[in-house]
């Protein structure tokens, strides 16, 4: 992974430090930036996000980054809200998103067995082999914190269950995304992040 030069897109979310620390632990430098040129020239781009979809999209659109992100050719990883922003649409405040994948993010429905938000460690099951999961057992636990999720579709690479299955990881061309937080998912999460950083353009 030496030589990886990671740009973390600054979408105004508050919780970026934990991602930067996770990359530090992997020995990878990263830059938190809203500058289009820095993002375009990075080897890998991560779109994080904690907060609300509408607010994040408003910031990305105002700064012109929504088009920059959609046009990227290097590996891009969306995390949590970042993943939902890859969708065409989010039910959260009925927000038009980046439309990188045709799916939409829908509100999780609470039940006594499955409270919302879904907060905690869930098993992630791969539906296909993929280099993102190299060295990670099928059914490994990852840490989730979310109220919305993308349903299972043709770009779904792995699923998790919250009463019903949803997309835990998706892959489409150079775009990858996880609904879980790899930076807070112990050893499995660190492996997932390092696998992403090994993917080359």
């Amino acid at each position: 992974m030496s030589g990886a030069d990671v740009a973390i897109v600054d979408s105004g979310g508050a919780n970026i430090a934990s991602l930067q620390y996770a990359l530090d632990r992997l020995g990878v430098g990263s830059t938190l930036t809203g500058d289009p040129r820095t993002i375009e020239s990075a080897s890998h781009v991560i779109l994080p996000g904690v907060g609300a979809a509408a607010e994040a999209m408003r910031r990305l659109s105002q700064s012109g980054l929504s088009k920059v992100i959609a046009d990227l050719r290097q590996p891009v990883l969306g995390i949590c809200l970042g993943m939902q922003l890859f969708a065409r649409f989010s039910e959260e405040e009925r927000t038009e998103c980046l439309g990188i994948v045709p799916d939409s993010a829908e509100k999780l429905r609470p039940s006594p067995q499955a409270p919302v938000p879904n907060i905690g460690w869930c098993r992630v099951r791969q539906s296909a082999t993929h280099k993102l999961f190299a060295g990670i057992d099928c059914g490994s636990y990852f840490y989730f914190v979310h109220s919305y999720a993308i349903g299972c579709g043709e770009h779904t690479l792995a699923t998790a269950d919250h009463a019903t299955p949803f997309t835990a990881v998706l892959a489409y061309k150079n775009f990858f995304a996880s609904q879980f937080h790899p930076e807070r998912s112990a050893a499995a999460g660190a492996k997932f992040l390092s696998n992403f950083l090994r993917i080359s353009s």
Partner: protein
Amino acid sequence: MQFREHRIVGDILELAEKYSRSGADEIVFYDITASPDGRTVDRTWVNKVAALLDIPFCVAGGIRSVADAEEILGHGADKISVNSPALENPALISELARRFGSQCVILGVDSRMVGESWQVYQYAGDENRITSTSRATLEWIAEAQQRGVGEIVLNCMNRDGVRNGYDIDQLATAKNSCDVPLIASGGAGVMQDFEEVFNVADVSGALAASVFHDHSFSIPDLKQYLHMADIEVRL
């Protein structure tokens, strides 16, 4: 022990690393004297903890404003937990949820039976200032959810530190009025207490401190025990 005579349990970084390595699923850092003293949680350590931990962690103690929360989350905490300041100003919950999303806003509730019903207590971190409030626990839990809280940690004070088991009655009743995850706190003494609180009260998580600080049993032993009892845990 209950909420009196707080003990210093060692360097927090050392403990945090030890617990995360031994399989803790989340760590909560309580500065329980912050609110009674009118000061905010000291944040210099939050960065260090965030750099060290690869599991989620939550910071609680004297968070009185969106700006306080922003600073703590910006230093790398995953969640913030509010208790006494939310009792003084319930709108704080709504403001935090709107700004950061429900998922990182946790409500801590200190509660015990008074007469026939469970009542909320304030400033439970200071034996000289602890006060009962006029709020019924179940009503406060309902209001907090309407205001957008993402998770509730219910600390059953009559059980805290006495290790006689979680307050199953109170937790099961609270669980019935919770659409968000409910975390049990107060009373864990033996491994069977955890099995009971998951099976009978059906909580989403169980918090414990003194049994781990005192090495009554280890987190791996507890998880193995729960796994054998058919309770889903991350091993």
